[in-house]
Each structure stands twice: as C-alpha cells, then as structure tokens.
C-alpha cells in the first residue's frame, strides 16, 4: 500500500493542479495578511474560505483523480497486489497531497508573518486541523461516489450535489427546523445537528476558539460548555474521525467486491 501511496503522491506532486492549489492558498494567505495586518482577523476570513473551498476542492479533485487514473488502476489490478491497498493507497495519496498543499500554502505566509510569536497560533492550528480533516473526509466521499458510478458525468454531478448538500442545503434545513420548532427548547437539537455535519462541526469548533464566540449568546454558552469539556472535545474529534473512517471502510468494501 505504501508503494502505491508513494506512486500516487509523486504522480500528484508532478501534476499542475496540486501546484495551482498550493499557490492559491499561498496567495490567499499573503493577501489576507497584507490586507488585514491582523492575525486573528485573517483567521476568521480564512475560516470562511476553508469551510467552503476545502470540501469543494477535495470532492472535485478526488473524483477527477479517480476517473483519470482509471487505466493505471486497471493495470495495477492485473498485478498481484491487494485491492484494498491499491485504492487506499490512491486515496491516501490524494488526501495527503491536498492536505500538504493546504498546510504549506497557508502555513508559509503565516510563519513568515510571525505566527509563532502570536497568540493566534492555536486558532490557526485548529483551522489547519479542521482543514485537513475536511480534505480527508471529502476525498473519501468523492472516491466512494467515483467507485459506485462508472459514468463520469453522473459521478461528477453527484459529487457536486453532495458538496452542495453538506455545505449549503444542510444548513438551510437546519435553519428551517429551528424556525419551525422555535417553541421548543432547541439547544440539544442544535448541538447534535451541528455535530452531524463535518462542515458545521469544523465551523463551530473554530468559531468557539475565536473572540467572536461571545456573539453566540446563550446558545454559544451551551456550546462552549459542551465543547470545553473532555467529553465534548473527544466526541467532536470522534465524529470527525468517524466521518473519515466510514467512507474509507466503504471504499475498501466496494473495491473488494467490484467487478472491473
């Protein structure tokens, strides 16, 4: 598996898209710091970008890579290599190279700017950690879709739809149910609902770290109380890990049975 991981990682590191992605984040980081002149403000703006773009790019890149490397995959399948290691290797290759672009692209300008002397370092770290988790989650979801659908158009459409659902529609439904059931106590519900969606969960985890959390008022206090405890931190990390593990397990399951 490690060998295949290495191949797909090298393959990707030669690909133009990784560099585009890397330079995009580099540019974003530099511009933000240049315009804002304030680390914690830059972190807030970055959060907005990360919770939208990282999942989108993870999804598209994952699907694209899978469909593009299909011939190579078929060649590999003919070799005496285990199926699970082929697909997991490819998956890890994509996810790791995406995460590396993110970390390097954002990290470099921030480090040059003087991140280590700043108090915002933990905000920034939590930003990167959620970014990495989101990359892993959405690449895995994309691989799932690509494995299930031979038809590229269908696969792409579904992947975009999935992103749209988790990034936008989910919040809409969430809001609708909050408004509809406003006569009931909703703190527990909103806690659970925001934990189920990885994008919402990372947004809340970052928000709670920032000053802006005081805006959240009573509901925010409930959230802070929960996420501040060991149980809350454990559960939220657990949920994120689960979001990675379940799709990865499904990749393994489908790829073992699929007829190529």
């Amino acid at each position, binding site marked *: 598996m490690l060998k295949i991981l290495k191949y797909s990682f090298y393959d990707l590191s030669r690909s133009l898209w990784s560099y585009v992605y890397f330079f995009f984040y580099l540019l974003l980081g530099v511009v933000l710091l240049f315009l804002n002149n304030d680390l914690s403000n830059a972190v807030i703006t970055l959060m907005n970008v990360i919770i939208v773009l990282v999942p989108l790019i993870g999804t598209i890149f994952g699907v694209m890579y899978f469909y593009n490397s299909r011939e190579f995959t078929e060649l590999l399948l003919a070799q005496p290599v285990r199926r699970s290691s082929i697909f997991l290797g490819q998956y890890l290759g994509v996810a790791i190279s995406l995460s590396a672009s993110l970390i390097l692209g954002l990290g470099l300008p921030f480090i040059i700017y003087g991140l280590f002397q700043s108090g915002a370092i933990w905000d920034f770290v939590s930003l990167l950690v959620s970014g990495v988790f989101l990359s892993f989650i959405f690449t895995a979801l994309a691989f799932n879709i690509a494995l299930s659908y031979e038809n590229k158009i269908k696969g792409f459409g579904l992947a975009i739809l999935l992103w749209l659902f988790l990034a936008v529609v989910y919040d809409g439904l969430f809001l609708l149910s909050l408004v509809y059931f406003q006569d009931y106590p909703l703190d527990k519900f909103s806690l659970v609902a*925001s934990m189920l969606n990885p994008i919402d969960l990372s947004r809340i985890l970052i928000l709670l770290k920032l000053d802006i959390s005081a805006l959240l008022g009573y509901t925010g206090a409930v959230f802070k109380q929960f996420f501040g405890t060991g149980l809350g931190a454990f559960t939220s990390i657990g949920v994120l890990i689960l979001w990675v593990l379940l799709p990865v397990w499904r990749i393994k399951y489908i790829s073992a049975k699929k007829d190529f």
Partner: protein
Amino acid sequence: MCRFFLFIIFVFASVVSRAQEIEVCKTCEVKTIQAAVDMARDGDILKIKSGIYKEHDISIIDKSISIIGEGLPVIDAQMKGTALSIRAENFSVEGLKIINVGRSHTSDFAGILVSNSKNFELKNNRLDKVFFGILLERASEGIILGNKITSNAKSQSTSGNGVHIWKSEKITVKNNQVIGLRDGIYLEFVNNSEVIDNLCKDNLRYGLHFMFSDHDLYKGNVFENNGAGVAVMYSKFIDMHNNKFRKNWGSASYGLLLKEINDSELRNNIFEDNTIAISADNTNRINYIENNFRNNGYAVRIRGAVYDNNFQRNNFLYNSFDIAYTGKLNNNKFSNNYWSGYSGYDLDKNGIGDVPFRPVSLFSYLVNKTPEAIVLLRSTFIDLLDFSEKVSPIFTPANLIDDQPLMKRIQW
C-alpha cells in the same frame, strides 16, 4: 505714632483673619489626623506630612477646613471601616492616599464618605484596596477631581463602587481613574451633574451607571473592558458626548445599555470592539448623531417600546450586525448614515446613495426570532440568504431603511 497704630492694626487683622495651619506628622506636636481635626476651627488648613497613619473613621463634622497631604501621606484604615467621613460645608481634601478600607455586607464603608455636605472639593487623592471609593450622600456643589481609585474586586456582592453618588446635585466628577471596582462611577438620584474626562477600566459591572438621574452630562470619558461600559437607566435629559466605549466584550456585555431613557442625546461617541455597542430598551426621543460604531458584534440592538429615536450621520463600520430590531418601526428614523456594508451606487454624484440601505439583515431578523439560529453564524447558507434578501427583501421590515445612505465615511 501713626506707624505704630498701623502695625497694631496689621497684627490684629492677621490674627483674626488668617487661618491657622496645623501640621500633622509623626514627630510633630499633632500626631494623628483625628486630633488635628478636633483642634481645627473653620478655615484652618491641615497639612499632613508624608508617613503612614493607621486611622479609620476620622470624622469631620461641621468644620470648613482643608486637608492637604504633602508627599502623599497614607491613611491605612486596616480593613476596619471608613477612612474619612465628612459632614460639612466648604471643605477640601487633597493629596491623600487611602488604603485598606473595610469590607462589609451591611454597611457601605468608603475611602472618603461625604454626607449632607455642600461646596467641597476632593482632589488628587489616591485610593487603593477600597470597598467604596468616594461615597457622596445628599451632597451638592462638589467637585471630585483627578483622583485615582483602584481595587481588586472579585465578585459583585463583595465589592463596592469607585465613585458612588446618591441623592445629590451639581456634582462634577472630572479626570478620575477608576480601575477594578464593581461600578466605576455610580449615580442614583443625581441631577444637574457632570462626569467629564474620566477613565473607567476593568470594573466588574458598569463603567458608569446612572439610575433615576436627570439633566446630567457625561463627556470625554473612556470606558474600557468593563462588565458593561455604561448603563443609563430610568433617567432623562442626559447628554452623552465624545466618550469612548471600548472592548466591553463577553456574552452578556454591552458598550452602552439604555433602559427607560427619554429626551437624551448621543453625539460623537466611539464604540469599538463591544459585543453589543448599544442596547436600547424602552427609550424615547433619543438622538444618535455622528457616532462611530466599529468592529462590534451588534452595533445597535433595539428591544421593545422604542419610539422616536433618530439615527443620523453615524458611521457603521464592519460590525457583525449593524442593527438588530424587535417589533415595529415605531417612528424611529435612520438617515444619512454611512454603512460599510452598503453596496449601492451614486449616479448623480451628490454623495448620497441612490438605493436605500436595509440595516437589518435577514439573519439578524431570524436570530431575534429564534436565538438558537445564531449557531449558523458565518455559514455559507446564511451568506447566500442575506445576499438574496438584500436583492429582494421579503422578510425584513420593509420600512426599516436608511433612504439616504452616505457614500463616504463621515468625518466629524
């Protein structure tokens, strides 16, 4: 002969009119302040030399004297009660350092207690580790100037206020610093008074607190990092000019809390980095003119029963929510403000945007109805929603608009 008579007259005159000066120090004839006060007659000057005086409950009753500390003498009340309590007319206290005032749940011990007094001056004193700092009851025509009051308040129930004024008139509180108490400056039933150029910082509850006080002015003050900056309650005819409300940040924190206020004016104030810059509840006929709201969570939050409030020529800069609004418009007006969120155009180049601005975003409207919805803060869906509402408003109150939003920031 003539010369001799003149001399006699001069000596006589000087004995009668010239005030006596009493010196207090460890090696002087008079060793305690209380003893000096007991000796003194109207018009005398008590000069307290530097040193530590372990005295408490020094009381000055019906004596018009001035107490002047030289070289910052320290009165250590040893946590045993009020340091200096005064009931007199025409007196002054200057240049003392008062520390360790006793704490109590039943009586209000203070550094300097002034009751039933008139025409006095408390100047350039330093108070440290006090329960109440300067406490005025039924006083009038007093000046509290240049004092520095600090303490280490931990909880609201075991701490007092820096400058506490009750049932008084025509008091001037100027150039003081109040740091680390419960309320910085507290006024209850205080009329025709002025609070000018003070700094209130790190206080547990409010920087400045008005209750039932009318016809007062506060200007040029800085309120920073208090539980809440200023609370003005049940008062009318209050002028609030040129103050700075900064960093009053926390889940239940305000820059300025207005409750049951009538006929007042806010002009040229700066609100920066507050969770809620102004929370207005039951306020009538208030003018908000030329204020700056920058980087606040909410710039203005309007609760119920707010009538005839007028927002004109204010700068709303980069607040998470500019206005949050409950209830009907109730004849409140927004006009000629600058909004950093305004994206309209100005074809005729007269400096006024051609499209009205809607300061209440759909999200702030929703949050008002369902407070839990705030967890969706900064999510993509909400941004989309706000954008579409801006383009074609459906939910937000249709007449709540600034129909003459300015294109450029107002300089004042």
